[in-house]
């Protein structure tokens, strides 16, 4: 075992997966070795179909890899784990519940009930996301950006150690998208989590993350793991720094000329 592995929060050792169990079936992902530290923000970029979502589902325990092992805090992941919050591409709120009840839904769903303390926590989370005025509104009365904020708040309700985000902002318009990205960083700052953030946007990845994992096309493997040494807090000013374009260029090279990199 490597020396620094003690600190690793999420580990993947030689992870590979094929959806079809036949031995000659194509791999979705292969040879993944990564270590993610606690409270680290890792963005994952790569071409469509490279297995980014597969990676995420393996960390959540919804998918058990056919090769290698995934472990969280030293324990191997073998089934769905409840210390994980998931944010999807679409907000997927329940249209028959108010914003507040949508946020409380994970508790209602897991245990069948929730208490006064939980309601207080939901209210605090909504306030933190600037949604306190909308808690009794129905989801379809909210804009797409606000719905996705509710989706994030819902994922935070059970106070998970890990936040998994699968292209959470890709359905939003560019301006909303930038704003909600900074809001996410603010929330993450106040509630430190280990974040695995899948995106198609290279600049979004660099702007938000501590490290960017660049994946190859199918079968997905790790092409590069880039340290984003830009100072925090990040802001619209960050984009103007020369280092920002250096980093995005480096990622772009991987995507457009995989052989050269």
């Amino acid at each position, binding site marked *: 075992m490597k020396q620094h592995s003690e600190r690793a929060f999420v580990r993947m050792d030689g992870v590979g997966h094929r959806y079809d169990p036949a031995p000659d079936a194509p791999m979705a992902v292969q040879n993944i070795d990564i270590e993610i530290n606690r409270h680290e923000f890792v963005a994952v970029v790569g071409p469509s179909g490279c297995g980014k979502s597969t990676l995420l589902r393996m960390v959540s325990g919804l998918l058990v890899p056919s090769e290698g092992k995934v472990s969280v805090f030293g324990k191997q992941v073998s089934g769905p784990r*409840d210390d*994980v919050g998931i944010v*999807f591409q679409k907000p*997927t709120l329940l249209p028959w519940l108010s914003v507040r009840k949508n946020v409380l839904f*994970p508790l209602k*769903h*897991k245990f069948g009930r929730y208490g006064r303390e939980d309601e207080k926590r939901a209210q605090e989370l909504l306030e933190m996301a600037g949604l306190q005025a909308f808690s009794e509104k129905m989801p379809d009365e909210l804009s797409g950006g606000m719905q996705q904020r509710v989706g994030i708040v819902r994922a935070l309700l059970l106070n998970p150690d890990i936040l998994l985000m699968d292209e959470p902002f890709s359905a939003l318009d560019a301006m909303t998208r930038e704003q909600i990205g900074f809001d996410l960083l603010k929330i993450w700052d106040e509630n430190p989590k280990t974040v695995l953030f899948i995106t198609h946007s290279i600049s979004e990845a660099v702007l938000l993350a501590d490290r960017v994992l660049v994946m190859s096309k199918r079968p997905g493997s790790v092409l590069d793991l880039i340290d984003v040494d830009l100072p925090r807090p990040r802001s619209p000013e960050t984009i103007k720094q020369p280092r920002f374009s250096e980093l995005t260029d480096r990622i772009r090279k991987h995507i457009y000329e995989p052989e050269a990199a």
Partner: protein
Amino acid sequence: MSQKLPDGSLRNALLTCAPWIFFIALLLAWEALCRIAELPTYVLPAPSVIVDAFFEVEMSRWLDHLWATLRVALMGFGLSIVISIPLAIFMMRSELLSRTLYPVLVVIQSTPVVAIAPLIIVMMGSGDSSRVLITCLLTFFPLVVSTATGINETPAELIELSRSLDAPTRRETWQIRIPYAIPHIFSGLKVAITLAIIGAVVAEFVAAEKGLGYFIQFSTSFFKIPQAFAGLFFLAAVSLLLFKCVQWTQQIFFAWSLPRKKS
């Protein structure tokens, strides 16, 4: 809408009134046709003649017939809900069950109820129960299909969310899948309620001594054509009212399941 309509309240008023205006115009045209062409009442009675025929029959007799039909239609409809919604849920849970049952359901659905109705009456007698069964046979298929479709359309992400929370399947069904199916269930209910009336009437045609269907058949066989038409219109009105009741139920209790009106 390609046609340009006046704005605001005038436009709304027009949209509300248009079907009524059209309906009244249709009746007037009908009345005119009968008078001008001097059609005999057994070919086509004029609306005014039908209205007269309606009031010639005592109200208590109407209510008697109405109750007989309504009772069968509603019991058949209720039974069909009780059977088909759980059936659809179980079929969606198990592929084996759905593969086994689906062909049978299609066979039942594609057999004309009019053809089986006499057999059912022979087997079960001419009481309410056989008429309820006939109604139920006619109504349950659209309900099974719409419920199953709705349950199937639950977003995959929500199912993943449920799995990641490690919640019991029971709650996945009750808190996610069934509510998601509500809009589809209501489309099924709207089809089923009108079919329920049809089922009850078909059953009465085969064997009954009361009911609006029986009344229409009986009037026709005695050549009381205006009276038969009066029965027909009464039946249509009842059917429409039941349809509206389903719609109101959805509006009052499941308002979220309707597309939000743009103001």
